[in-house]
């Protein structure tokens, strides 16, 4: 078997493509968690984004409306979460679970009329440059705009948190809402904004799945990616750059599974499908074992409600 160098490039590119939704959703959730809010509804927001994007694309025919519509849908559904946890001070875990159950139900309800409809081709950038450089060509060129955005996002997020004033405010709110509040920061407002931003990114991640990655609507098509995105945030120890590494590992596991089947490795397909979930558990164990490190990097108020009158 001759291994074509461009073939390796294509495999790497496909790993990157499968990492895109994880990066988007994780970076969104990272901001939410950095402000002290644990939103377990990522899976629900993602699936809402997936159906909204696909439905809008089919109905309006406009890809731009569909992409932004999916983000808006993510924002809208996360508003429920924000209102409950921030205004009505509900438990973050329970509310997030409700959001996921609700999101899966609602998406299937809306999606009933969109099953079996073929998707549209999503335009890619720099298609012509693909063959100009061996190996790197297929990796760098010929992807959708969402793909490029996803790979820039961890760096943007890192810059935002470390170098900008608003980023500093977000971190302050997450680490010590009391002192932030005493400094005159509106904790509730900041948290609202971070939750809605997380919703937008999850919505975009979902739209990527239903419009670009596998352009069609399948019920429950997120298949636990939202939960893996949540695990990635822990994996990253709340550092956006590490999300990139984690997402590539999980993307790799997904892609390798297809190639193993293709070359006829005699491992039950179910085992290969289970691999990303099992690896997630192993990775979480390895990361969390050092309890001191986890304590230092976890936003101190994560998952705890804050009420000014308290």
């Amino acid at each position, binding site marked *: 078997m001759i291994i074509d160098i461009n073939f390796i490039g294509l495999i790497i590119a496909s790993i990157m493509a499968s990492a895109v939704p994880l990066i988007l959703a994780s970076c969104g959730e990272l901001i939410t968690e950095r402000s002290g809010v644990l939103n377990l509804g990522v899976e629900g927001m993602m699936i809402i984004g997936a159906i909204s994007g696909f439905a809008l694309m089919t109905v309006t025919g406009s890809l731009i409306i569909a992409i932004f519509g999916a983000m808006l849908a993510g924002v809208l559904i996360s508003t429920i979460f924000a209102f409950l946890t921030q205004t009505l001070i509900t438990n973050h875990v329970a509310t997030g679970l409700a959001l996921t159950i*609700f999101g899966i139900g609602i998406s*299937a309800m809306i999606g009933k009329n969109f099953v079996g409809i073929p998707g549209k081709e999503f335009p890619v950038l720099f298609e012509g440059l693909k063959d100009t450089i061996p190996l790197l060509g297929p990796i760098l060129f010929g992807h959708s705009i969402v793909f490029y955005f996803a790979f820039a996002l961890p760096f943007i997020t890192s810059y935002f948190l470390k170098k900008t004033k608003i980023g500093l405010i977000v971190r302050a709110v997450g680490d010590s809402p009391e002192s932030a509040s005493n400094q005159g920061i509106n904790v509730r407002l900041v948290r609202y904004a971070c939750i809605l931003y997380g919703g937008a990114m999850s919505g975009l991640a979902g739209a990527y799945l239903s419009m670009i990655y596998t352009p069609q609507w399948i019920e429950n098509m997120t298949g636990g990616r939202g939960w893996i995105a949540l695990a990635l945030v822990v994996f990253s120890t709340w550092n956006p750059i590490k999300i990139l590494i984690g997402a590539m590992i999980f993307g790799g596991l997904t892609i390798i599974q297809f190639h193993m089947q293709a070359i006829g490795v005699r491992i039950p397909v179910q085992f290969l499908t289970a691999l990303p979930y099992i690896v997630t558990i192993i990775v979480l164990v390895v990361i969390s074992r050092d309890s001191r490190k986890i304590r230092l990097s976890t936003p101190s108020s994560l998952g705890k409600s804050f009420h000014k009158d308290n």
Partner: protein
Amino acid sequence: MIKIVKRDQPSRAIFFFTPVLAIFLTLVAGGLIFFILGFKPFEALKFFFIVPIADKYGFSELLLKATPLCLIAIGLSFCFKSNNWNIGAEGQLTFGAIVSGGVALIFYEQEGFYILPIVILAGAIGGMLYASIPAILKTYFNTNEILVSLMLVYVSKLILDYLVVGPWSNPEGFNFPETRQFSDSAKLPLLFEGLRIHAGIFLALAAVVISWFVFYKTYLGFQMKVSGFSLKTAKYAGYKGKKMIILVFLISGACAGLAGVGEITGPIGQLHREISPDYGFTAIIVAFLGRLHPVGIIFASLVVAITYLGAETAQIFMQIPKYTGQVFQGMILFFLLASDYLLFFKIKFIGSKK
């Protein structure tokens, strides 16, 4: 003018009233959703909540669906009361079903009174084993139990899929993804001729009684309550936190495993791919709606069980998509959490001055 005032103490009356309020609000919101989708709201609600349980058969189906929900929710209440977020009951149910199904398959040609107890025990042990994974990882490796227990749900369903397609598939089954039928001795007896309700309901009722006793009459129940209220206090009081975490996970795993046994040795009678319509996840809602109280959970499991039946009926008679059931389940939890606000805050109406 409306003014919101903090209560000095959470109101006990409201504590038991809010679940009722949440159900009412869900019905209103549900009617609204039906209206938006273009159905007659009252007719849709009737088909959803009244028609399915209007006859003897429907009532038996209601109990059939409420049984696993109640059983799992009772188990989960042990975890939730003590601040342990086991959300992988669906996986523990599946693994319990796998282990008990495996045992039942060993005896597939035999009859005997001893078979059913062994099969039931195997299911409970399977659920416990599976629940022990997040428990041990949480206590000894500081790993987040929410994510681990959830990831294990996906893994358990893939294990089941592998078994029923591969090694355990029925050799005379024309390659259908299912095992042999269990022998009659491995099946839970039916309670009434012609109805599907089976003896598994007694497992659920036993769990209710035992949990009530543990919660309110034992030292363990008290420890759980304190740990749920404040982990710091529990530490000062010198409670053995690790032991308790593992214990509550084992209890809830056993309950979920038993629910799995009830499904495969009751209405199903074999293993196949879809043994549970997400009972393990829905039971989380049941546990909250029942206020983590054994009696409350009985009522909550009946209410939530209707959403399963209603979704089926509404789909048959009105072509309403069956996922509406899940939408209702999500909404109940939303409204319940939201109305908990009334526990801690009073809304005062103050007459405006002219």
